């Protein structure tokens, strides 16, 4: 509370005096989601509501003569956990000179050409937020990083140095039904320590080639989704979540073709801690690829489709070392996605539908949504996250009991 007051005080003092130079924007938002499957989890956060929050976001920005700063902070009440908290979404300093741009601080970086499919975007994500109906921007988490951009006619380069590891935020067993064979066993998380040798490096080289935006990528760091290690395979007493080393090499291209926008991306995940594929708790190396196509079918209606695949390398040793009774992943996991968007009433009403469907996992995830702008400042959205599948061990199949309906209302200023 003290924090809130001091922030408001600073704003009150600072804003009028520097109104010309500093821009203040933000929003107030209510965001609620309820499980509609009738299933409830034990525990204080396992009721029908999986999201209930009120949120204030403040954005402060200023820039002059190539230098600038940006600050985006959320203050929110989580009504399900009964907590009030702050979230520093982004806070960075900018400096640009000649062909070099520098950005230092907590920042969101988004790479690649996939629509909700990530191959070379190895930056942290918040799937728990996304699955419970929070707006898309909350899928991305900031990285505490130094980013340098070098621009040249022939090729441009972007280098991101991340000394502080940030894992993905995954749905927790307290609020979500998940496949977890060791849910009763105490667990500890071992994150990579902030050390020089653990500093993550991400490089993107890009240029326009024959009308296509093309890029190559390289990443040295860690899986952001943890592996699970047991102290004893037969009767485990302790589960340790850890983040194995990962290098990723990939490329992408996007441009106008076939009467629409065509996107292509591929990547090779090099699982450094398990190159032979013999360690069942470390993901194997794999090749990922996607092809996407998007076009306007008629006025204010856009359709986009993607085909995505993950090809597991060293599949034989994966199967040989997988403990008995564990669900096996397919050698090739495939996903199809569709996004349909129709705008009405001078683009104030947006109906959209996003679908994931995996023919190999036989599972799906559908997101229908209606969003209406009441005024320039106020919009509201109603939507649903619908999961399902043949098995409760697949990525979307395990979320089957978490189908939820969400409501968002936001006033922006």
């Amino acid at each position, binding site marked *: 509370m003290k924090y809130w007051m001091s922030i408001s005080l600073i704003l009150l003092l600072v804003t009028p005096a520097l109104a010309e130079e500093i821009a203040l924007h933000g929003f107030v938002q209510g965001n609620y989601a309820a499980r509609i499957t009738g299933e409830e989890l034990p525990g204080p956060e396992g009721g029908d509501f999986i999201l209930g929050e009120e949120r204030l976001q403040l954005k402060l920005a200023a820039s002059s003569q190539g230098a600038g700063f940006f600050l985006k902070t959320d203050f929110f009440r989580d009504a399900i956990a009964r907590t009030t908290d702050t979230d520093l979404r982004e806070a960075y300093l900018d400096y640009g000179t000649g062909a070099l741009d520098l950005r230092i601080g907590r920042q969101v970086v988004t790479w690649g050409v996939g629509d909700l499919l990530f191959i070379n975007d190895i930056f942290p994500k918040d799937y728990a937020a996304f699955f419970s109906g929070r707006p*898309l921007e909350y899928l*991305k988490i900031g990285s505490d990083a130094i980013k340098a951009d070098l621009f040249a006619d022939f090729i*441009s380069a972007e280098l991101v140095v991340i000394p502080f590891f940030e894992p993905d935020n995954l749905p927790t067993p307290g609020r979500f039904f998940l496949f977890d064979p060791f849910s009763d066993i105490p667990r500890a998380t071992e994150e990579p320590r902030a050390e020089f040798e653990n500093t993550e490096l991400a490089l993107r080289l890009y240029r326009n080639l024959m009308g296509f935006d093309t890029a190559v990528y390289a990443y040295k760091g860690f899986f952001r989704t943890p592996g699970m290690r047991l102290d004893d395979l037969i009767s485990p007493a302790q589960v340790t979540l850890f983040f194995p080393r990962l290098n990723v090499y990939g490329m992408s291209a*996007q441009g106008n073709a076939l009467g629409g926008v065509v996107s292509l991306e591929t990547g090779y995940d090099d699982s450094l801690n398990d190159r032979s594929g013999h360690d069942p708790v470390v993901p194997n190396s794999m090749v990922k690829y996607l092809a996407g196509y998007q076009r306007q079918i*008629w006025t204010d209606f856009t359709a986009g489709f993607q085909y995505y695949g993950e090809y597991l390398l060293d599949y034989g040793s994966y199967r040989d070392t997988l403990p008995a009774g564990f669900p096996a992943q397919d050698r090739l996991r495939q996903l199809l996605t569709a996004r349909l968007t129709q705008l009405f009433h001078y683009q104030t009403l947006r109906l959209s539908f996003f679908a994931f469907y995996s023919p190999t996992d036989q599972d799906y995830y559908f997101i229908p949504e209606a969003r209406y702008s009441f*005024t*320039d400042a106020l919009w509201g959205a109603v939507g649903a996250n619908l999961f399902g599948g043949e098995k409760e061990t697949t990525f979307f199949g395990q979320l089957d009991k978490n189908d939820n309906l969400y409501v968002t209302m936001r006033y*922006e*200023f």
Partner: protein
Amino acid sequence: MVLLVLFMLLLPVNASAITGEEVIKKSQAAFFEAGNDFQARVKMTLATRDGLQRLRDLTMLRKNYPAGEQKYFMYFHGPADVAGMTFMVYKYPNRDDDRWLFIPAINLVNRIAAQDSRSSFVGSDFTYEDVSGRDLTADAHALLREEPFNDRKVYVVESKPIGPAEYTRKLSWIDQVSFLPLKEEYYDVQESLYKIFTAEEIKDVQGFATILKRTMTNVKSGHKTETVFERVQYNAGIGDDLFSERYLRRPPEKWIK
């Protein structure tokens, strides 16, 4: 010699026998291509029949390139849910534009599909083509008549789309001096008038006649959009590098004010 004199006598008559297509071509040059480059703060007010208003506030930068190509860079100041977004278009004659949108909330640059140029521009009554021009050969143009219009002499040109479009016929009243459109009427399949463009304020800016205030009214729904151009500048010296991913992500303050 006699022939030559005769020819010279006939010349003025021939000169005024301009075709509909020539009028539209000159009109597009005056309306969408004036200067080497162009900069303006654009304020669009969208109003429903009931008087509910929405505002679109953006900076528009345009630069002309050889062979009729153009590049556009737009930065949105408001409303709040799109503030900070930038939109870039590479416009080519007779083929699909390249369009990119930068979404600051997730720091994402993405290509936007651009097949339908008759789509509404940012939810207004103006289409993309009303903002950046329509291919000359997309319509068959016919000069119907010349007449006075608000004390100006105008050409009245009828344009009929060759391919599919939401209008079947457009009438344009084009000033004979500046070649700017003073009024346009759009007719639908039922031959009924549904949309009217009017130019309310025209001023000379650095020697270029410029429409500073224009309105598109949907006469059927009563919805209308009034667009005001402020701080218009031609030949401002916009560099080629502005139209790049670098500035899409980090728009230079010098240009977007």
